[in-house]
């Protein structure tokens, strides 16, 4: 499917209103039954979401409404960080990409299917081969097979605690010992050391493939009655805290704190959050980079990055690598003081020798943070990473850009596009017109049926027409002046005209509705699920904390971890 077609595919939406939250039912589920779709002379048209505002109950927020008990399969990043604890950073993961059914790779819907399991097996074989020689056994341990086995079991107990986020049980140790014994025979070498390493290899594979490692359990104490709220165990609390904040397993200090019961209080969890932010800033920075990238659908593997050589002769794989690297540096640097306003409106960006031309500045000797013209750049929405991803291979893509802003920054839903949408002609194939003019002409040809939906997002995309498909600022296209005036439609205040991209970014940043949307997106990312009606109070508390703490994103994640719903789950009926 071609991006240009997808971008325009919403063009023929019928009577589109862009409902907020997509018209959810009171239980938080999407309606699954509705009246028949309307028909047209050419066939049934798609069902249009009911244009209703969310019907949030107005009851005071007193009772704790925890989420259902569940297990969450580790995402790629989480699994990689976990295996690093067992093996060290010796090889990349070879498992399929995370699906993003709920928008984020943290989604709790992911499963252990055959391609994932086999990919993990390949990864473990690779990692084992890489590090096996470094598994040390002292001379005492090498004195006999029995001595080696005792030493191996000791090591497995230590690693097992980190892998399972709790001490191994006696029966688990026994089983791992049996696997160790069988593993020893998998080498043709007969020395005690070689056989012990082969045994360790298999025992570690068992640890690393175990459901105890692969799933984050949020079930609470075993034996809790169905329908009741169960408190998460100390191990589960430590696990949830560490993976939410760092995408990594809890360290020994966090496990110790959990075992002392310190995570059962908000203050205790806050203390551990603060400790981990200091102890593991790189992991936290990577976690925020992941969140922001997934929130705005920044994806350097997208076909849009196969830029046309004729349209963008300066583009090269090396330039793409530089954009990718500097975006990562930018976001990780921002994560040290992660202000929402800075993210959306900051005019400093990491620029290197290769990317300087994208920003219209002289090439620096090395990549570093540069204060850019604030009338040209304001935050992530005006970055090459965002603009180049949401572009065509041979031009900008105002419709795609507008839709991403509408859906992901404003949290507004759109009905699915109709089928019979003709592709948008390439602006490069229409000399004498700007991209905006091509789109507007296409819309006119589509008739009034197009206008409803496109009026909601095109104006935001038009404001980003000040950048081409590589994210370069421009005032002209095809020799014609670029019109980057736009508007934000349907916010918590009257429609707001904007003179260009930086004004768009600042208007979005100051909108309470956008801030609430960001809170919701952070909630989805951190919890790995869509919000339900029962989460209303939690979201309200998060909104309040976010506004009160100067829109600090680290504080927002901490607030979620400190919230009382973090420690409990509702037990389902088996």
């Amino acid at each position, binding site marked *: 499917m071609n991006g240009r077609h997808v971008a325009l595919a919403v063009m023929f939406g019928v009577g589109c209103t862009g409902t907020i939250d997509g018209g959810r039912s009171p239980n938080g589920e999407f309606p699954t039954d509705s009246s028949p*779709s309307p028909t047209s002379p050419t066939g049934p048209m798609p069902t249009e979401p009911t244009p209703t505002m969310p019907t949030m109950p107005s009851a005071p927020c007193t009772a704790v409404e925890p989420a259902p008990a569940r297990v969450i399969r580790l995402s790629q990043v989480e699994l990689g960080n976990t295996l690093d604890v067992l093996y060290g950073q010796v090889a990349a993961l070879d498992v399929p990409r995370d699906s993003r059914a*709920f928008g984020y790779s943290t989604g709790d819907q992911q499963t252990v*299917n*055959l391609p994932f399991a086999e990919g993990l*097996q390949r990864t473990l074989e690779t990692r084992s081969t890489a590090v096996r020689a470094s598994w040390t056994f002292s001379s005492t341990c090498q004195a006999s097979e029995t001595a080696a086995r005792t030493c191996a079991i000791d090591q497995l107990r230590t690693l097992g605690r980190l892998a399972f986020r709790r001490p191994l049980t006696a029966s688990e140790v026994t089983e791992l010992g049996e696997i160790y014994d069988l593993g020893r*025979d998998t080498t043709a070498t007969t020395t005690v050391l070689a056989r012990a390493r082969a045994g360790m290899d298999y025992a570690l594979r068992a640890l690393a493939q175990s*459901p105890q490692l692969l799933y984050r359990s949020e079930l609470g104490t075993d034996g809790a009655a169905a329908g009741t709220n169960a408190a998460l165990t100390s191990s589960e609390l430590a696990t949830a805290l560490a993976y939410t904040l760092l995408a990594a397993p809890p360290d020994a200090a966090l496990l110790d704190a959990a075992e002392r019961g310190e995570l059962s209080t908000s203050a205790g969890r806050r203390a551990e959050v603060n400790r981990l932010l200091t102890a593991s800033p790189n992991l936290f920075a990577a976690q925020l980079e992941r969140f922001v990238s997934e929130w705005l659908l920044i994806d350097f593997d997208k076909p849009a990055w196969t830029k046309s050589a004729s349209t963008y002769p300066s583009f090269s794989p090396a330039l793409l690598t530089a954009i990718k690297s500097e975006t990562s540096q930018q976001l990780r640097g921002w994560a040290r003081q992660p202000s929402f306003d800075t993210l959306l409106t900051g005019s400093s960006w990491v620029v290197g020798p290769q990317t300087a031309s994208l920003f219209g500045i002289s090439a620096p000797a090395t990549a570093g943070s540069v204060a850019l013209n604030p009338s040209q750049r304001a935050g992530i929405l005006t970055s090459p990473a965002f603009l180049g991803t949401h572009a065509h291979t041979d031009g900008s893509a105002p419709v795609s850009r507008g839709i991403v802003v509408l859906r992901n920054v404003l949290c507004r839903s759109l009905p699915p596009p*109709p089928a*019979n949408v003709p592709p948008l002609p390439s602006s490069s194939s229409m000399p004498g017109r700007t991209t905006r003019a091509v789109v507007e002409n296409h819309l006119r040809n589509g008739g009034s049926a197009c206008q409803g939906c496109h009026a909601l997002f095109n104006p935001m995309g038009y404001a980003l027409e000040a950048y081409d498909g590589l994210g370069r600022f421009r005032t002209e296209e095809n020799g014609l002046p670029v019109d980057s005036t736009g508007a934000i439609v349907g916010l918590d205040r009257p429609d707001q005209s904007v003179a260009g991209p930086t004004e768009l970014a600042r208007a979005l940043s100051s909108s309470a509705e956008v801030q609430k949307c960001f809170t919701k997106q952070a909630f989805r990312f951190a919890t790995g699920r869509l919000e339900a009606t029962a989460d209303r109070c939690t979201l309200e508390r998060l909104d309040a904390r976010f506004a009160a703490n100067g829109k600090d994103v680290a504080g927002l994640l901490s607030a979620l971890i400190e919230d009382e719903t973090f420690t409990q789950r509702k037990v389902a009926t088996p």
Partner: protein
Amino acid sequence: MTQISRRAWLKTFAGLSAASVAQFDGLLRSAWAQTAPPLRLVCLTQPHGITSYWRPRMPNGGALTERGWRLDFDPDSSLGPLERHKDSMVIIEGLDFTCCYGPGSTGSIGHHSAIAALTGSDLRGPDDRRSKTPSIDIFLASLLRTPPLVITFYDALKSWDATGEVYPENEDMVRTYQQLFGGLMTTTDPVAQAKSRADLRVLSYLNSDAQRLRTRLAGPERVKLDQHLETLHSMETRINRPTSCAKPAAPVGRGDLMEYPLRHQLAMQYLSTALACGLTRVATCHLSGGNRMPFLDLGGTDPAVHNDVVHVMQDNVDLSIRRVSRIHRWHAEHVAALCDQLKAIPEGNGTVYDNTIILWTNELGNPRDHEPWNVPFVLLGGGGAWQKGRFLTYNSGSGTSVTARETNAHNRLLTKVANQFGANRTFFGEPAFTGELQGL
């Protein structure tokens, strides 16, 4: 015990023309132990819809009837390469992805309606992009307790598991080869045997672990562990797979850089070998030659298939229709090759083809308008309790109302196919569409 002769095996694949197509390095002596050959399912999907060149035509040019038609009536006929297999075909037109636009749907149409092809259902919602129900291939693999084999060359067409999660995409034939054939043991090496024992012990440990966790879960959370346990069973099956099964020669080069024609050629070969060797009973290939098909004459200079060929097809311009049909025909050539390969492997009193159902469909109907109705379906293979060699039409002709199209829901075909494997279903996918497809 079914025997496949070495002569027959080598004869099957020796005739393949491409240099990179593997030559076989051994003898398939006893692929499976059961006395009755198992019924297998192959699901094939492809993009871009169909044209008037897809329909069979009568030799005398008259009105199309259920039998007596030809497929190779024109060099650009979509199904021409399957002329030699037509006696075992059922060609079905007029079925709709009603589940994507009828009551209860999320409204996924255009390319998005591809989710319906094998699931018979829609996404759960605009923010919950899981399928409501599993696709028939993963469903039946679970029912039959056989490891699913899914190859994906097109990102809009996917398979889905019981939790609604998309089944991971795989378009790398080097990796597929390793997964299917890389671990086949051809030696009595004691170290290899020790590895097998240790691998099985690890799987036993993982299985116990997953079982324990499963008992604490309910509802959709338990389904996750069911899926996990099936995966472990599949891995165990692969360790215990036939050790004497011949495997193709390993592919050369990087899988991610392989050209589409070669990818498809290898996919069909691996698929038929995996079925014949008992490595799986359910295999899927989501076919696609990519968005550039320079190996076809599509007019212009390396046109983009989607934008420059499919979407601009004009009903009154024969050449534009022929170009779209050539794309379909390219896919049909690979389907025909798969049939040839399955037919060439003796099994019991016939061939593996006789014990296979091939279900082949599309992401949509009309190429230009991307409509989710009048979606083509083709059944091939000797399996399935239906009469072969027929053309069936389910287009009521009343056109546009939801009620009329409800009668054409393709779910009933999926139900019919699922029940050939003992699924005993009254519906497949969307529950509203009950019963099996009548007239098949």
